[in-house]
């Protein structure tokens, strides 16, 4: 008998199977694993636990921490913790389930509605009352608070607006000798000429972790007077306006106006296209010049374009602050939210934010108006902005499954590959959405 045979005796079947089962159970553990959680629920030692996301550069979180920790009201203090975007829903869920979650937090745009369905959200009606009594409520931009109102109360309070404006690089349009698009027809023509000089006429991407392509699909539907939902919140994917919008997108793809590799572009790939002077026009977030490192003034906000029926629209995400039922003191949570909203202007004063404010007074501050792109977005995009709720105004938990879900991502990638027709792509999108949206 050789050494191998001897070793195999001590390597028993049972031991091996145990080891294998343990290793094989990794996917189960991964699927069920909880996120990190620390401290007691709502707040250790009576302090309000505030969880915030990395909304901008690290300096933002430093400033937000300073504001949060400066809170002193309702006989309470506040602690501050940054929660990374990776697996944030899992982090919140597991912490809330184990009663170690926050008392107040920012988070995903529709997160408050998801946790409200699960009975974890404290309604913000008293916060709204306090904002009305101190005059701050009147300072909100029009229409930003109402989407958070449900039949049971306000699930959250908005604190910043994440919008998707159109940007363009002036030098590329000059080089191509073409004007900036004002409607879909001129977008197609300009795109063809830009392609002629090696530029991308309508830059986007839907690779790993990049949701710009997803947002573009919805924005183009809205831009044509369509959208995924009716005014009553009913699913309405296969309407004529949506079909027309997708047909136009497919036309952009087939003409090479949309980069044939866009389907795989990550955020970094897309930013690199803008930085390298390859992307001429496209829908992105705020602060593109700063993000791609070109503040020469060559990259600027374009005016909204009109659809073939004259519709104009932009996609907006009202980000919000929410309160949870698991709190050391509901009164202190409410006081904290009112306090924090009152201090928000400091973040824009320090130019730390990569989003629009929800308060008119902040949009009028010199630190904000110094950037003409900001002014243009507030003046031209905010008035025509619509949410994922499309023709409706009320937000809901279903929008979370739409925003980050597989159905929209698959639809986007199908369109960007160009190997489909509009009705087939929309039908598959409709089927996918129906399987995940709650009635």
């Amino acid at each position, binding site marked *: *008998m050789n050494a*191998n045979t001897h070793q195999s005796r001590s390597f028993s079947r049972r031991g091996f199977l145990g080891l294998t089962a343990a290793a094989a*159970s990794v*996917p189960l553990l991964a699927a069920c694993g909880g996120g990190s959680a620390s401290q007691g629920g709502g707040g250790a030692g009576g302090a309000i636990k505030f969880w915030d996301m990395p909304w901008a550069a690290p300096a933002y979180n430093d400033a937000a921490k300073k504001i949060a920790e400066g809170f002193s009201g309702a006989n309470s203090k506040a602690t501050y913790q940054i929660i990374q975007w990776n697996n944030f829903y899992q982090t919140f*869920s597991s912490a809330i389930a184990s009663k170690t979650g926050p008392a107040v937090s920012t988070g995903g745009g529709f997160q408050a509605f998801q946790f409200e369905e699960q009975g974890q959200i404290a309604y913000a009606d008293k916060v709204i009352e306090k904002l009305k009594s101190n005059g701050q409520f009147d300072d909100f931009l029009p229409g930003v608070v109402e989407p958070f109102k449900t039949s049971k109360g306000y699930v959250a309070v908005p604190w910043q607006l994440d919008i998707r404006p159109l940007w363009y690089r002036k030098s590329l349009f000059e080089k191509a000798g073409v004007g900036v698009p004002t409607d879909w027809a001129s977008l197609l023509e300009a795109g063809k000429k830009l392609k002629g000089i090696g530029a991308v006429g309508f830059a986007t991407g839907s690779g790993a972790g990049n949701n710009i392509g997803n947002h573009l699909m919805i924005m183009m539907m809205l831009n044509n007077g369509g959208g995924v939902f009716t005014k009553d919140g009913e699913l309405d994917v296969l309407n004529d306006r949506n079909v027309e919008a997708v047909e136009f997108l497919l036309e952009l793809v087939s003409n090479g106006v949309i980069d044939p*590799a866009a389907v*795989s572009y990550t955020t970094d790939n897309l930013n690199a296209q803008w930085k390298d002077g390859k992307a001429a026009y496209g829908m992105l977030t705020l602060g593109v010049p700063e993000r791609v490192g070109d503040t020469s003034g060559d990259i600027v906000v374009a005016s909204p374009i009109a659809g073939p029926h004259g519709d104009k629209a932009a996609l907006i995400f009202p980000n919000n602050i929410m309160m949870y039922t698991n709190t050391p003191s509901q009164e202190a949570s409410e006081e904290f939210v009112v306090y924090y909203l009152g201090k928000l202007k400091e973040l824009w004063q320090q130019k730390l934010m990569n989003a629009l404010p929800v308060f008119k007074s902040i949009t009028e501050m010199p630190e904000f108006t110094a950037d003409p792109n900001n002014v243009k977005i507030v003046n031209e995009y905010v008035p025509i902005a619509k949410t994922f709720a499309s023709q409706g105004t009320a937000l809901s938990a279903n929008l*979370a499954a739409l925003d980050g879900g597989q159905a929209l991502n698959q639809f986007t990638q199908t369109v960007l590959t160009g190997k489909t027709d509009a009705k087939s792509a929309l039908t598959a999108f409709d089927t996918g959405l129906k399987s995940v949206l709650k009635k």
Partner: protein
Amino acid sequence: MSSTTAQSGLARARKGLAPGGAGGGSLNRKSKLSAQTSRTFFWLLLPSVILLVLIHGYPLFQAGIQATHDGNLIATGNFVGIENFQQVLSSPAFWKAAQFTLWFTIVGVFGSWAVGLGLALLLRTKIPAGGTFKVLLLLPWVVPIVVSSTAWNWLVATPDSLIPSIFRNLGLGTPLFLADPTLAAVTVMIFKVWVSFPFMMMMISAALASVDSTVYEAASMDGASRFQQFTQITLPLIARSTYISWILMTIFCVNDFPTIYLLTGGGPVDATTSLVVLAYRTVFQDFATGPGVAIAFLMTITLVVVSVILYRQIRKSSVE
């Protein structure tokens, strides 16, 4: 030398016996432990058993509950029996992901094994700067997957990336490695082989190091060719390590989330969505916890079955 003599020599060599050596004695005696020793074993094992139950048993139990309920990550929800499993098994997305997982695993396991074996054999020869070469070959395994996936993205993602540019300059067109569904699947599999071959190389190198060089001398004296030595001595003597590495790599491939998710996110159009990526997306993007956990359960069962089959091969190779 006759063919019979060569075969006999190879058979002796596989057993690790030098020419003329005696051996083949059996150590097949069953240990008889006294009752006291058994008790000692029991108490020594108990902490590990408790730990295993806590670490694996409890989550498995919880996963079982979630897979049979319609809840979410916070609330258990209502009992739905095997409805989630039925839903998953009747979904085309599941079978598409299962098919990709199968190919990804086959290519990942055998591709990395073939490259690892070739390099392990190469490293046994005297090559200049062999030590440095060995360390460099370990880099794909050592470098964090986030870094290597980013590097690969830079290499292949856009038409202006390095590899597509090389293809274009060679007149081979501009392949869209991550945008074309078929090419994306191939790219992800090659990436997996690239990440995994150092592991295989180390496993095989360790197995080869334990093979007595006199075995090859004996085979040479018996007239065996290099190819015969490789197929009749090297492969059988490293079979046990090979099967173990296959089992481990199968588990690594089936459970591999970051390699796929960081490079393609499962796209384009689900072309590179494996079962573990599908489970993740079902739970955390579609917020369908029950079906997502059901996918993970089905994966676990499949992995255990595959592992048992491969384990039997290990026993078989040991007995032989």
